[in-house]
């Protein structure tokens, strides 16, 4: 099954001056897929900011690297990768989600990084799963797949988020973010160096089989129920056990190569396009060519067709370019003899499958016959489309007037599927393996780890994107996703240093949907520029549309990585002490579009909150100063469910038994311009900050001096109740509303 169009077939013939061979056809099929070539999006992605002081390695390789800082004279980088595995997860949820982790782990590994964390933003079909057995199966199996793979390889889960919407009924979104740690002087590149002529290309990992054949092209097709069965063959088979051993063997190979003085090996993950796609990109990136002998590729079944060995996307494989002689010998020894890959997984090993050549031709042989012979750049340059960019629909409308009683609404808001505790889901994931976790997923707005033993230098990370906003206005949703991820990192005491994006959209051949993609790119670019943050990696996932023509909610999903200078200053969101001051940073607004409260009270309608970046920068710097001098005891960003849900969560705490209450003044005192229910439940961004009472006045004053809105709106209480103006809640009731909704699915 080829996905290439007839006109694309003609272009290939014109490009190489003859009819392509079958292997070449499959190579172009993968290489020119949307998944690999970004043929619709590349021109637009250029407008994203990608440079900055904290960038050690920018966009363009398997993953980007951000500057974490120096410890004992050694500079460390955080490797960041962000991918989607949406289509496979919809068709075969367990394997799709698991291989999503498998693939991104290799991206980090190939930069020379040690894996230090994973995050999983998930978007599933409608919240009420009664009568939707497949959607329920997807929502459960995806989590099982992530847990089955991530736990086994021993990489802690640091966060993620979860939204439910019927636009994901036929197309779940399963994104994954992976972080690695690498010394700045030991970054490995996804390219061969200039002196690599004659170097060996060594394929390591699982024996190639027929699984994952046509995967890249499949990922770029619209899902059709009737083809789902046929598409299953395009999904790879996960093997976390092999990966666990491969990771450890690779760490050792990296050390041995350095000991041998090989400073610049090429190392690249086999993803889309298999052996051919990976080897062509690895050598082309260094202006070289390659010669590959398909007979040398280790296979699990004899007599696989050449095109399957060449382009099949069997999991758990990577490609090295290393000098012949000692380096190649070391590599083969570590993988095959020491770590014994052949004993770990049948047929797995490291094998020399070809060599680098200087003349920039790409030649592949099977049984002595040439099956590919083209200039390497025709394989890697891809194609571009000037898609027609239509007007992105704006579904914002006048903000509705909300009616209801706070007493009845807060429990409903807390129990909403997009607000409630994710603990029943997160407990499936290992959050603390590696022994580096400071703030586990679910305990703070961002996860925090101290990845360098003996050092207080930490990494904070969060991933965000609200599809309810995406449905209204893709551009503003993009801005808000960036702001929320940055706020989340700030709320644990981190300083944002860089971003990644995964853009999940519908069919780019439809002008309106292409328009949404372009608008979202504008939005995430504008917010990043306003906050002086670079993008160091990203991913685009298109055709997230079912055959019936319904597209997913436009979903720009943003991960923010932050530096925590001293982990002993960081804090989770739960209230720490009674009698603290509760300070609101960020003015309340009347915009209610996409909020949970509108869904509960009015069904729909509303505008999205616009970000005042000057004020946001002020909030961030005030919070930062408060973490530095320890006057801030904890913070929580105002997002899904609004301010009152935010404060309730701080009272309840991640496990439900924090038991510190709060008394909040009526909003007429601190948000007189805004209707009461909008003040309590509106989702205009901001922070609720717990500040030592004696420092509160100074904190508020300092925040105001930055141009931010700041007000003391209440205090924490020793007794387990939440008093919101005239309404009093027992924390036990709020805790049960918040903690239990996901239990039915995940307990």
């Amino acid at each position, binding site marked *: 099954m080829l996905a290439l169009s007839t006109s694309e077939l003609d272009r290939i013939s014109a490009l190489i001056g003859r009819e392509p061979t079958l292997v070449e056809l499959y190579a172009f099929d993968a290489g020119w897929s949307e998944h690999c070539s970004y043929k619709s999006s590349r021109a637009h992605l250029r407008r994203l900011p990608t440079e900055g002081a904290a960038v050690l390695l920018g966009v363009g390789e398997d993953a980007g690297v951000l500057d974490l800082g120096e410890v004992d004279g050694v500079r460390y980088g955080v490797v960041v990768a962000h991918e989607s595995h949406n289509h496979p997860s919809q068709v075969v949820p367990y394997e799709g989600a698991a291989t999503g982790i498998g693939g991104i782990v290799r991206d980090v590994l190939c930069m020379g990084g040690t894996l230090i964390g994973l995050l999983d933003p998930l978007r599933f079909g409608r919240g009420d799963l009664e009568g939707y057995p497949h959607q329920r199966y997807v929502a459960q199996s995806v989590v*099982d797949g992530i*847990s089955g793979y991530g*736990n*086994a*390889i*021993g990489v802690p889960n640091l966060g993620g988020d979860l939204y439910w919407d019927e636009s994901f009924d036929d197309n779940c979104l399963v994104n994954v973010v992976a972080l690695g740690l690498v010394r700045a002087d030991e970054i490995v590149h996804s390219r061969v160096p200039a002196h690599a002529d004659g170097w060996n290309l060594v394929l390591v990992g699982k024996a190639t089989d027929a699984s994952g054949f046509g995967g890249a092209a499949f990922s770029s097709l619209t899902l059709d129920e009737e083809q789902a069965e046929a598409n299953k063959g395009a999904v790879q088979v996960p093997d*976390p*056990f092999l990966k*666990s*051993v491969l990771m*450890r063997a690779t760490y050792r190979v990296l050390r041995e190569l350095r000991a041998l003085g090989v400073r610049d090996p090429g190392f690249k993950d086999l993803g889309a396009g298999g052996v051919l796609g990976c080897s062509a990109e690895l050598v082309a990136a260094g202006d070289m060519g390659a010669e590959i002998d398909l007979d040398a590729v280790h296979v699990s079944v004899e007599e696989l067709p050449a095109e399957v060995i060449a382009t099949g996307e069997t999991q758990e494989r990577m490609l090295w370019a290393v000098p012949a002689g000692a380096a190649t010998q070391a590599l083969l020894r570590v993988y095959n*003899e*020491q*770590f*014994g890959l052949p*004993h*770990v997984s049948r047929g797995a090993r490291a094998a020399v499958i070809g060599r680098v050549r200087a003349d920039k031709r790409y030649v592949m042989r099977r049984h002595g016959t040439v099956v590919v012979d083209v200039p390497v750049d025709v394989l890697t340059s891809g194609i571009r489309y000037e898609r027609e960019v239509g007007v992105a629909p704006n579904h914002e409308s006048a903000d509705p007037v909300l009616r209801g009683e706070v007493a009845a609404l807060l429990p409903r808001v807390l129990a909403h599927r997009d607000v409630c505790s994710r603990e029943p889901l*997160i*407990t*499936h*994931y*290992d*959050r*603390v*393996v*590696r*022994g*580096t*976790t*400071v*703030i586990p997923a679910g*305990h703070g707005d961002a996860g925090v780890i*101290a990845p360098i*033993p*003996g*050092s*207080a230098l930490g990494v904070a990370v969060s991933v965000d994107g609200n599809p309810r906003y995406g449905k209204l206005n893709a551009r503003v949703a993009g801005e808000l996703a960036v702001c929320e991820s940055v706020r989340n990192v700030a709320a644990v005491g981190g300083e944002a240093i860089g971003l990644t994006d995964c853009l999940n959209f519908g069919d780019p051949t439809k002008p309106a949907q292409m328009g949404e993609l372009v608008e979202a790119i504008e939005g995430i670019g504008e917010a990043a520029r306003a906050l002086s943050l670079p993008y160091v990696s990203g991913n685009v996932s298109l055709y997230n549309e079912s055959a019936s023509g319904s597209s997913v909610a436009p979903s720009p999903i943003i991960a923010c990585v932050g530096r925590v200078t*001293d*982990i*002993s*200053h960081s*804090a*989770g969101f*739960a209230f*720490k002490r009674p009698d603290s001051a509760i300070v609101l940073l960020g003015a309340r607004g009347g915009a209610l579009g996409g909020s949970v409260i509108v869904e509960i009270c009015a069904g729909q309608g509303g505008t999205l909150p616009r970000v005042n970046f000057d004020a946001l920068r002020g909030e961030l710097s005030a919070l930062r100063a408060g973490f530095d001098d*320890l006057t801030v*005891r904890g913070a929580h960003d105002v997002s899904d469910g609004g301010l009152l849900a935010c404060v309730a969560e701080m009272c309840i*705490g991640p496990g439900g038994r924090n038991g510190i209450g709060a008394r909040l003044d009526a909003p007429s005192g601190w948000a007189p311009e805004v209707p009461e229910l909008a003040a309590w439940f509106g989702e205009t961004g901001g922070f609720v900050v717990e500040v030592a009472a004696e420092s509160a006045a100074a904190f508020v004053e300092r925040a105001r001096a930055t141009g931010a809105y700041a007000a003391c709106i209440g205090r924490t209480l020793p007794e387990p109740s939440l008093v919101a103006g005239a309404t009093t809640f027992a924390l036990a009731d709020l805790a049960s509303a918040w903690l239990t909704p996901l239990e039915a699915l995940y*307990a």
Partner: protein
Amino acid sequence: MKTAVIVFPGSNSEEETLRAAQAAGADARLVWWFEGRAALKGFEAFILPGGFAHEDRIRAGAVAARDPIVSAVIDAAQHGAPVLGICNGAQILVETGLVPGTGEAGRPQAALAPNIQGHYLDHFAEIELAVSPERCIFTRHLAAGARIPAWASHGEGRFRFRDERTRERVREERLVVFTYVGGAPNGAEFDCAALTNPTGNVLAVMPHPERAGWRYQQPERVRFEARGDRAAYLAPYGGSHLFSLFAQVLA
């Protein structure tokens, strides 16, 4: 006494377990499965770390228990060597029959069954000394009823015993050294969190003390007490106690 932290194919907690042992003063190093049984010569104490050794095929720990490198640990344990198994390491020790050690050698008398929830569980858990401190060589210096913080992170943590006779011996010989405070989250018999053998030199503990072994890993409230104190955050704390007790045995 030299301590070996043994790495199996599929182990995933070896680094932090080694760090915790070293921080407690143990002279420890990693020994990889491919170094073979001979590499354990000269080691007098052993730690089996967490993970998914040999992919947990058949049952968690079942294949690793028959790994040639483990035969050396079994021999040493039978001669009184201190052996600590954590999580998957505990599962392996149970599969060797070393704990509860009430049957013939090599025949498992217990197993770690899937959690009653049917899935993996990851959460903070405190464990409590449930026997007199002399019962096990690792707990000799603990106060009666002492509590140690840990993280339970496992899919198969439910201690079950072969038959009523075994259960009776486990009870009579006081082999359940630690129980979970507040009851076993996974449905383990006797609320068992850690099991020893009749001679008290082998300890199989399911929750991970090395994941609550430094101040920075503690629950928010405990962390907060030392807020801003960088050295305190990075210092061993809580679960590290178990490693100190281990190191004291070796001294």
